[in-house]
């Protein structure tokens, strides 16, 4: 079976669920205030081993603040963070020992070469075997460029080096905050492929992004933040299925609206010309058809409109919080 889609590979392997054994990251009631402004309010997250969780939100939603708190850069006002069973607010060093992260734009010592930057990160981690440098450089496709100064690297190369640095000590949890930020389409595709490859190898990843296409491609589950609070969370496909719209053309739209507005599993009814758009579970379309037929309303067209994560995102975060541009595959 030929599968080009990364997620298809993941799901098709059949071993993924078997690896979902325990909780790698558990966050509860995480709160951060800056004066009167609440940056993160009562955030709860749970990330299981082998899972790729997308943390989404418009700019200023609190994603980076949440990650900064997980990494101990920002002190939370309330809440608990548990990484691999260790309380990260009390034992930060021990908790972060098995975490690799890139936060915001990649940060390096520009006067050092790629390999020396990796050496610095390795020493910060207490040292890693020398052969590991070659392994991670190979993994991110920087072999042969490691002796060059980082100041001469393109942004894409820096992003890849940052991922190499985060993977140096073979972490059990990889946190990637906007890993494709500022990259051109080709760079984005390269990083996305790399993340898909890591995910396929069973790496647990918390991916923070506002590029929804990217997240839809890569993540198993998503948590959507808006103004510091979780507004939606769940399996990507389930979330999209929940919000699937059904397009309906009938001979008597006003009567159909009157009838359908009484149906509890229909969440919303919108009218676009002579077309009714119903937000409802897609599996109830036969029930819908039967209901209309029973009330003598003739159905001319009934089709399910699948939605993108972007549409779902705009639905739950509101139109004022338009996310950034979509990534290009």
């Amino acid at each position: 079976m030929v599968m080009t889609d990364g997620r298809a590979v993941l799901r098709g392997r059949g071993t993924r669920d078997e690896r979902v054994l325990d909780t790698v990251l558990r966050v509860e009631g995480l709160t951060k205030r800056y004066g009167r402004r609440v940056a993160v309010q009562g955030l709860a997250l749970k990330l299981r081993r082998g899972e790729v969780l997308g943390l989404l939100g418009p700019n200023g939603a609190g994603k980076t603040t949440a990650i900064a708190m997980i990494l101990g850069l920002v002190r939370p006002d309330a809440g608990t963070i548990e990484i691999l069973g260790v309380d990260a607010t009390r034992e930060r060093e021990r908790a972060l020992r098995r975490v690799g992260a890139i936060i915001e734009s990649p940060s390096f010592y520009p006067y050092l070469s790629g390999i020396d930057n990796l050496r610095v990160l390795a020493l910060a981690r207490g040292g890693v075997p020398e052969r590991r440098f070659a392994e991670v450089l190979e993994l991110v496709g920087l072999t042969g460029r490691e002796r060059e100064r980082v100041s001469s690297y393109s942004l894409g190369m820096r992003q890849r080096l940052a991922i190499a640095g985060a993977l140096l000590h073979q972490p059990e949890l990889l946190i990637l905050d906007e890993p494709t930020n500022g990259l051109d389409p080709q760079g984005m595709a390269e990083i996305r492929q790399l993340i898909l490859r890591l995910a396929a190898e069973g790496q647990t990843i918390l991916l923070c992004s506002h590029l929804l296409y990217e997240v839809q491609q890569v993540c198993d589950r998503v948590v959507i933040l808006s103004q510091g609070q979780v507004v939606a969370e769940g399996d990507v496909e389930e979330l999209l299925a929940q919000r699937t719209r059904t397009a309906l053309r009938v001979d008597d739209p006003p009567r159909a609206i009157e009838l359908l507005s009484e149906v509890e599993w229909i969440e919303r009814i919108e009218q676009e010309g002579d077309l009714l758009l119903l937000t409802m579970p897609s599996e109830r379309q036969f029930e819908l058809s039967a209901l209309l037929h029973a009330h003598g309303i003739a159905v001319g067209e009934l089709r399910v409109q699948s939605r993108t994560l972007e549409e779902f995102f705009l639905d739950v975060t509101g139109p004022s919080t338009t996310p950034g541009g979509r990534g290009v595959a």
Partner: protein
Amino acid sequence: MRTLIRMELLKLRKRRMTWIMLGMLVGLRLAGTAFSVFWSSQAGVEPEIRERILASATLPNTIPDALNFIAGLGAFLLAILTAASMGSEYSWGTLRAIIGSGVPRSRFLAAKLIALSTAAVAYTVVPLVIVVGAAVPMAWLLDRPIMASGIDGPWVGDVLLMMARTVLPLLAQVAMAFAITVVTRSQAAGVGVALAATFVEPLAALVLDMLGGALAAIADYLLLVNAQALMQYNGFGTVQVPQGTLSQTHAVLVILDWMALYVTTALLVFRRRDIEVRSAA
């Protein structure tokens, strides 16, 4: 902790600025000596002044003179190096990568201070060794004895003491620039305030001295006043210091107090404060 110190030493060693400043320290001292010797050979220079210059260019007097030079220019250069070393961690964002990897903040600061202190020692030892080395051909060129007296235990002891008297104020300067950079999170502020202090403090000491009474006593507890007092004791054998010079013990204790204050301030601020992440609100 050892790996963190190795990390900081790697960063310092590979930084061009470290070597450029060391080169400046050595080069300016050698150039200054060469120029003084050349100038002293001109007609019209009083024999007493000429003798003092030639003695300063050769052993053993070149040692305390070189150390005085290092204590002056070295303090400036180390303030710049310290502020650059810590300030660029903020401006390049590398601090969040290091601290985000689980490194305890206090250990990170300690490792950086130890590495910078190592640089302060290197900034004293390396130029001194080169200057002493250069004094040998200089003596040959000037047709003077390489050493007026022999090298014995007390002589070596004096040299080590002189080096210690030079390094201690340099370490205090490192601690000051470090604390200012940590508190302001700015390389420019670290350099600016540390350098401004070297100009403002002597003026403040002068004003306090002129005001007299209890205010004059405050000057005895200023960092640079004590650093300068300590340097007065540099020399071989029994050194005659000007009357009213603060005692060595007083100077050392005051300098150590200032260092403790700066390091404690840096540590308290660094441990408590959030590390800025650009998009973190």
